[in-house]
């Protein structure tokens, strides 16, 4: 069985790989950040 270790290390990424990765992660992190922010601003009331 051939063994392939084809995943490119981050250092070897080209501009396209970087662009795709940044867009993909922003796609999920921006909404998550919005939800996290909305939640965190309610927490101080717990100690108010």
């Amino acid at each position: 069985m051939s063994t392939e270790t084809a995943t490119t290390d981050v250092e070897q990424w080209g501009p396209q790989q970087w662009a795709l990765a940044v867009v993909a992660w922003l796609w999920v992190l921006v909404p998550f950040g919005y939800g996290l922010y909305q939640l965190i601003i309610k927490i101080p009331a717990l100690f108010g």
Partner: protein
Amino acid sequence: MAAGFLQRERIIAPPGWSRWLIPPAALSIHLAIGQAYAWSVFKAPLEKGLGISGVESALPFTLGIIMLGISAAVFGTRVDANGPRWAMFVSSCCFVSGFLISALGLWLGQYWLVVVGYGFVGGIGLGIGYISPVSTLIKWFPDRPGLATGIAIMGFGGGALIASPLTSQLLAAFGGTGDSPDVHGIAQTFLVMGLIYAVFMSVGWLLIRVPAEGWRPAGWDPSMGRQSAMITRSHVSARNAIKTPQFWLLWVVLCFNVTAGIGILERANPIFIDFFRNSTPAEVLAAAAVGFVSILSLANSLGRLLWSSVSDYLGRKNMYRIYLGVGALLYLTLTLTTNSNRVVFLLCSILILSFYGAGFATVPAYLRDLFGTYQVGAIHGRLLTAWSTAGVLGPLIVNAVADAQIAAGVQGPGRYTPAFMVMIVLLVIGFISNELIRPVNEKYHEPAAAEAGAKTGVQA
């Protein structure tokens, strides 16, 4: 769309494809379907707008969670066979259709369509979507399976963080709030949310890839991985897995861990109010209770990533010893200290909820350790029936015990301490079940030929 587009052969990763593109694909699905945890935002508008009871307004959610377990169990093998793009696409179609059918039902004033749409059709989307990225992530991250599944399953916990404020804002914008909410406004909210999720989830099935045959992480060799008698090198089919005691012991572990978490989660708001009514000014008590619910949501979500990642180093069995054993001690502490120390109360509650979330996130890696990667998605699907059972069992126990205490005129923490003691018993039973888990008997292992196929990664 050509049928071939969804086939596994079309999504085999080309050389150079980064495995770090797989978690965002998985998160696109899990952050969307995690909306289910935010169903409660719809409850008050539906009750006031349609004049229905609390039990009726909970029906779509309850049916959705039941369908999650059933569809994950029924379609698990097909998810493994057809691949993650097919599963994510079907999940998106069902989940989005659930919102659209609900919107139509509300527009026509037919609440049963909301139950069928969101609960039945959407629930199928929940089940298929939940397991869709799990085996793929495990195969892309053989060196860190706990971290990989923790990221995705944290997304399911985090989905409510997004959906809760989004739903509130859309309801307000369309006039679906207040004492006499516009039912058409609630329908518009369902419609818009369905369209948002259709776009959001599309990135999941467009981006997902399975590793090529023989692929492994650069510089990683299986022999370098963590060695333990509890980590098998063999593979067990889903059909055989359910014949093993290990599967059913793990079923009990998951079921009781989830039930214990729901013990607090189900009535977090009234628990806080009843515990601290006398020590908190009345004008800030309601806001403080909302803050308590928020901090528990955060603990539930972050616990999935944190503890599941730690399991890559400490081992799955040890982690469940912590979730169940320490969890029981934390419940005991809550029962003994009640409301005498708010910091202790908060710490115990936060840790219990973090263990609740972690129980979900660590179980796929535990299954991989016990049964191998061959049909881990299908086995995971069958195990999720434990979640459906706990989803009914947990609220039933807590509500029955608490309501009986309230009816008996009990005030303060005493309303909940009997329910907490039931949770301690369940956690101890779960702890013992975890202790009884041993490596799977060789007679259940797949023949060498099937194992060779499983190791290629093409069945991810």
